[in-house]
């Protein structure tokens, strides 16, 4: 690595994107006229100039070995003149100018275990996070849950028979790096017990005022433990957000027995038809059950299928529920409605039903 020490380069930013655009895109940049989706996973964009770009989209686990990256590079050279991209949901897209190459590319992708699909009214890849692979904060794994759910729902990835797009996402703790707060169906790792204060470590590694300030419910009070300054937690007030742990390693919440998963539904991001919406609580708690989290998989599947069977065309999950009403949602899915579904945070009062617009 001799050359690298020579002169130190900083603040150059990423390479300019133009370097990576295929000629057909450079020529038709901003000139695209319309698109079609002739089959799942294949999007054809037609330009004012008449030029056509064929995109083939394949599933990706997002966690890729350099081996696989080289494999993608090889496929790109073979089929799309070396050009490819990744999507905001982490799928890989090959950008073809020659339609003849679509079929062989798809065959090869399927052969190496990367199914093609995720377009149109389908389930696309799940936005997700690190989980046990890399994060200290996780209440569950990310990749394993995603793999288990998508194995079960693969048919909806490879076809376009759903009423609308349905976006699934997972975050392994309340920090919600997966931004699951606006997903049709969100899987959220949760702690269900207050932090266990490590009184030995705390004064050494944490600023007590910051720790106290970090708690949204004011559950943390300064205290002393065996003469040394520390904090104590009013467990009745704690709702396990782990914000204290984020600012102070001496307050771990991770708990093998009681960590688990909650399921959220009805969020969306697009402005299509309805305004963007937050996801709402559907199932407060399901156990962590690796390697395949059957309870989570079955719950998600059930929601997808009830929605698919009942929604009008183009109705996202949240739009469907708004039309039929939440009581119907719980009835149709068989999910139990509990006290925990009733908001009790800052704006709780605004979630109460202030009309007689009910269905019976």
């Amino acid at each position: 690595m001799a050359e690298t020490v020579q002169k130190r380069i900083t603040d150059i930013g990423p390479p300019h994107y133009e370097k990576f655009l295929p000629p057909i895109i450079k020529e038709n940049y901003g000139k695209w006229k319309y698109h079609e989706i002739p089959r799942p996973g294949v999007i054809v964009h037609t330009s004012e100039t008449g030029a056509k770009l064929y995109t083939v989209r394949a599933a990706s686990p997002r966690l890729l070995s350099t081996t696989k990256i080289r494999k993608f590079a090889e496929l790109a050279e073979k089929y799309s003149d070396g050009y490819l991209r990744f999507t905001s949901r982490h799928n890989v897209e090959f950008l073809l100018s020659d339609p003849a190459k679509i079929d062989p590319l798809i065959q090869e992708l399927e052969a190496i275990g990367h199914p093609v699909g995720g377009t149109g009214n389908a389930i696309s890849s799940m936005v997700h996070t690190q989980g046990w692979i890399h994060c200290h904060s996780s209440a569950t794994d990310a990749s394993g849950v995603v793999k288990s759910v998508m194995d079960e729902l693969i048919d909806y990835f490879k076809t376009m028979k759903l009423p609308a797009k349905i976006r699934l996402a997972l975050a392994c703790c309340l920090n919600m790096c997966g931004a699951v707060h606006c997903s049709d169906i969100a899987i959220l790792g949760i702690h269900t017990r207050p932090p266990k204060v490590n009184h030995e470590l705390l004064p050494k590694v944490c600023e007590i005022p910051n720790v106290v300030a970090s708690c949204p419910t004011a559950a943390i009070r300064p205290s002393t433990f065996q003469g040394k300054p520390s904090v104590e937690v009013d467990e009745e007030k704690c709702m396990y957000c782990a914000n204290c742990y984020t600012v102070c390693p001496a307050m771990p919440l991770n708990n093998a027995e009681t960590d688990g998963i909650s399921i959220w539904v009805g969020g969306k991001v697009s402005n299509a038809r309805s305004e963007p919406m937050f996801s709402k609580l559907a199932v407060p708690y399901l156990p962590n059950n690796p390697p395949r989290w059957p309870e989570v998989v079955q719950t998600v599947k059930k929601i997808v299928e009830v929605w698919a069977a009942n929604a009008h065309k183009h109705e996202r999950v949240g739009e469907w529920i708004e039309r039929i009403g939440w009581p119907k949602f719980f009835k149709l899915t068989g999910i139990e409605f509990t006290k925990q579904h009733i908001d009790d945070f800052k704006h709780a009062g605004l979630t109460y039903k202030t009309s007689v617009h009910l269905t019976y």
Partner: protein
Amino acid sequence: MAEQMKKYETPLLNELEKGPWPSFVKEIKAAAEWNQMANDLLGLLERSYREKIGHWKHGGIVGVMGYGGGVIGRYTNLPEEFPNVSHFHTMRINQPAGWFYTAEALRTLADIWDRHGSGLTNFHGSTGDIIFLGTRTEELEPTFAELTQAGFDLGGSGSDIRTPSCCCGMARCEWACYDTMKLTYFLTQHYQDEIHRPAFPYKFKFKCSGCPNDCVAAIARADFSIIGTWRDEIQIDQEMVREYAKNGVDINKEIVMMCPGRCIEWDGEELKIDNSSCRHCMHCINVMPKALAPGKDRGACILLGAKAPIVEGAILSSVIVPFVKLDTEESFNDIVELIDAILEPWIEEGKNRERVGEFIQRVGLGNFLEAIGLDPQPEMIRHPRTNPYVFYENYLEEE
């Protein structure tokens, strides 16, 4: 790195090699064949699956010289058993706008990472960076050197401007109302210092979507959300509309009834849109892409404040500039001016770990607008106040 590998039994993880969805376990195993870090990760992960708990400690501050961001420090709490992940830091590498690559660029990145890290990556992290997943502190600087040589740089982490991202926009979408990739590249370059050297109360994110479909979830995931839209009439090809109708689109049920502006009429022959009531939701265009298109007077709506729930509850970005043209250099510079105007009061008065959205809610949108010199506009709100607790401050000056 080809010394003798420890062999881990992974009965639980092996279950996740089965099934049609691509397996992350296969990926880890592929790297574990030759890479010690990946191999120990495999063992450690199996252990987590068995014990239902993660085995990572809080990361300390690690990074490359002169940067405060771009690296997430990580250490296992089982270093004796898994020495090769005793350090397992991730590097965030700023992706090219729109996530476009050439085979060659991908290979370059793979080669660099094979020389210095675990051989494992994320394409991409959920902010948009390329994630190099796991290496030792002493490898950070050499990796960085090779990356910059190859024309790449680190992205953001910590309390700084985070790596901006955008949808493919004009590169591959007919609905792009402004050049998302160009603006993203421009902002990324302009804010190199702020991306690499955390100096804010908390993180600040940009996302650019070319139209209201918001394919990068800007409104939910970026403090500063730029979403394309238009001001004039939706372009209609009546011939094509009839075509769609013939091919089975039930225009009344699927479009007229679903239009939030209730501004479409369809008599079986002609589609009439009262554009003055159009909410620019995209739905009709989405359903009939060959027949309809956004108008020609295109630009963007700028929204501010989105974030995840920690700690006062999630916030969606809200309108701060109803419409702005984005087709000139000046217009890009105006965006920078606006951003700087927003950053200033937040940097000065924002509390530690208070996102700009939380800051605005604390000081009040009205006061915030005054601070950044924007006039209040009805587009910024869902509806005027319902409570009668109005401040009539004017007299405070008067008297």
